[in-house]
């Protein structure tokens, strides 16, 4: 080695770096060849070559992919709603980085931190995209920043996303409203054209301060919430069966904001309903959480991620159905038919050239599957202040994608 550097001192530094770089790549290719050899035999040389040079992502990469299992490794595209975008795009960023299990912050575990849901996934010794893609028959690349297939997410509107996926322009159409409403379709047309993958929910659970919970109020009826926000109930003891003499401090959101409008529409019955009972308004979830925690008798609605011991979600009884804050209950505040929630969809097109003419190709199924477990729900859904799916919904979504899985998926 010292011999080498003596000789190279006469050559320019650039040549030196280029030379050693080539040597390094050659070495990597060798390693890749060996490890790949364990997996799929003779074709693995081409596979690892594509990885090492990084150039054959679409060409050579997909060829080698197709040689293993008929897999298409081209770019996975998604587009649509700005509401779904944070979930979809964070997922895409995680996917494309293909972080190793030693990372700890984005994937896997190390001495400093562990990603949520890591144990439930069985602590796989694989890179993030490698792991989720391998469930659907893709070859692991075993290299960070180089996923088995790359993904990208565009930003437009719900309707545009639905249209783009129907026309085959993108693989996944993100929408915050059902496609039946966005494109004015009938239920049958929707079911025969696209698969509806719900990855999370957007909603505003009703929360109260801890002293209200201590006074025994763990559920309210929709009618009571409406009466509180319309100044018909101003003290907690005006609610039947409650003996807690405390003025109600009703917290609302910025006047005319999306959250405000959604609450008026779903809780008070009309987007222009009066909110004469509101005592204060805040623009941000953090402010709401802070105000609820430091005042007595407070009630508010805000993103689930900001709840805590002093900011507690309550169950709401709508027309005799009690939606509980417990994730495993029969009806939960995480449900789709809880009136303050709406589903966040990632639509995929039912195509003839998909396996079995189904609703997914392997890339779509692999990518969407990443969101359907505790890891995905915590990082991508809750991490963006949305409501994670309750266990039962998670299971039914998982069953949809499992049709294409080459390995058994871990059920929630």
């Amino acid at each position, binding site marked *: 080695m010292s011999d080498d550097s003596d000789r190279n001192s006469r050559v320019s530094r650039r040549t030196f770096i280029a030379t050693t770089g080539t040597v390094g790549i050659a070495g990597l290719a060798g390693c890749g060849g060996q490890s790949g050899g364990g997996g799929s035999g003779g074709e693995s040389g081409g596979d690892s070559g594509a990885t090492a040079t990084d150039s054959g992502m679409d060409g050579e990469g997909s060829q080698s992919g197709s040689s293993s299992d008929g897999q298409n490794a081209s770019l996975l595209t998604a587009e649509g709603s700005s509401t779904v975008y944070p979930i979809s795009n964070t997922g895409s960023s995680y996917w494309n980085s293909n972080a190793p299990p030693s990372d700890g912050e984005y994937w896997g575990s190390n001495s400093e931190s562990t990603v949520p849901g890591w144990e439930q996934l069985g602590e796989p010794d694989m890179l993030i995209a490698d792991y989720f893609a391998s469930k659907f028959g893709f070859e692991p690349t075993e290299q960070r920043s180089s996923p088995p297939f790359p993904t990208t997410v565009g930003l437009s509107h719900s309707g545009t996303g639905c249209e783009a996926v129907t026309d085959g322009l993108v693989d996944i159409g993100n929408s915050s409203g059902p496609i039946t409403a966005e494109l004015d379709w009938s239920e049958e047309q929707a079911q025969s054209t696209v698969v509806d993958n719900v990855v999370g929910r957007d909603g505003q659970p009703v929360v109260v301060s801890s002293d209200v919970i201590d006074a025994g109020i763990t559920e309210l009826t929709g009618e009571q919430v409406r009466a509180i926000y319309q100044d018909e109930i101003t003290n907690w003891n005006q609610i039947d069966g409650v003996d807690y003499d405390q*003025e*109600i*401090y009703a*917290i*609302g959101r*910025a*006047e*005319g*904001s999306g959250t*405000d*409008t959604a609450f*008026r529409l779903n809780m008070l019955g*009309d*987007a*222009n*309903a*009066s*909110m004469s009972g*509101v*005592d*204060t*308004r*805040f*623009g941000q979830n953090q*402010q709401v959480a*802070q*105000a609820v925690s*430091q*005042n007595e*008798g*407070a009630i508010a609605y805000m993103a689930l991620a900001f709840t805590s011991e002093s900011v507690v979600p309550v169950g709401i009884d709508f027309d005799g159905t009690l939606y509980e804050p417990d994730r495993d209950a029969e009806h939960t505040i995480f449900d789709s038919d809880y009136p303050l929630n709406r589903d966040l969809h990632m639509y995929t097109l039912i195509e003839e050239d998909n396996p079995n003419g189904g609703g997914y190709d392997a890339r779509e199924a692999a990518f969407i599957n990443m969101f359907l477990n505790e890891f995905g729900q915590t990082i991508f859904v809750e991490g963006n202040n949305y409501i994670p799916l309750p266990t039962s919904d998670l299971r039914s979504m998982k069953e949809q994608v499992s049709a294409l899985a080459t390995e058994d998926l871990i059920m929630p």
Partner: protein
Amino acid sequence: MEPVTRSERLTAAAGKQVQRVRDFVTDTDPAALVVVTVIAVSLLAAFVGFLAVSNLTILPFAVFLAATGYGWVRHQEETALVLTLTMTVSTLLILGLIIVFIFRESVPVLQYESATVFGVSVPGLRMFVQSNWDAVSEPIRYSMVPMIHGTVMVTVVATAVAGPLGVAAALFLSEIAPDIVREFVKPGVEILAGIPSIVYGFIGFTILSPWASDQFRTTGQGSYLFVGIVVGLMALPTVVSVAEDALSSVPESMKSGSLAVGTTDWQTMTSITLPAAFSGVSAAVLLGVGRAIGETMAATVMLRGVPRLTDPLVNVFYGQETLTSLIARNYGEADGFQMDALFVAGVILFVTVLVISIGAQYIEWRMRSKLGGGA
């Protein structure tokens, strides 16, 4: 002597100006004159281009820069003259454009909020004769009354805090404190003015407001009283600093004269120093009031953000909304009339500050003419 009429005086003044320009033209080297003209014309063209949102604006502006560069090297005197003139003009122009803009933006909602008096429809009147603000549910009303009330409440409390405290501190620093104390305390007070308002607001939101809500048994947090106190504390450094300057610029001879006839220090302070520095001290308090009216961040985070009057009107234990916090809280979500209503709040603030600064100037002018050139 003939009495000179107003128009004659104006004509004379205009004639004088024309004469000055004519003198400038005759006295100046023609080459310099050309450069100066190019600078002025190109800047004017750039301004017109800017107003017309033209892509070609860059051309006259480049000509302006080039001409200025050339002029600075070759005819520095004339170029500097024109440059300083254009800078002054553009300051006034920018102010004018801002005023025109905020007034223009507020026109639609003023028309919406018209009210009829004696058969005459007065635009915007309804914003001031009823007190209901509701941007979402019927009837949609954009009354400014609750915000004006809030601003007045906060300002009154803030002035009650900052005025006496500030003037007392200024008196102590300027008349009583030993030099060494003053050397340390005065810069300290000025540093206090540099604390960002959000810091005060944050302390107010997390500590003062919940505490006040507990103590006064109010429903939830947010009161004009504590916003006023916090804003008063924020205005305090301004008041102390300006009032101290005014007090210490009272000539030593006046104080000595008073002491010589046998008054005590306190009598000198109250009957000589304070009256002599009255214009400066009131300017200090008015500056503090201005700061209190304009204070946004602390008010926004501490107030409730629901525009309505408190009951009764003098109830300072509930704090709803001020003109500034209305704008700060709603600009992100507002559209249509609601957005225009925010501009109306801006217009009201603008007019108020204008009145206050004219008032301050007037007090100063009165004092000067009365005391014959005091501080």
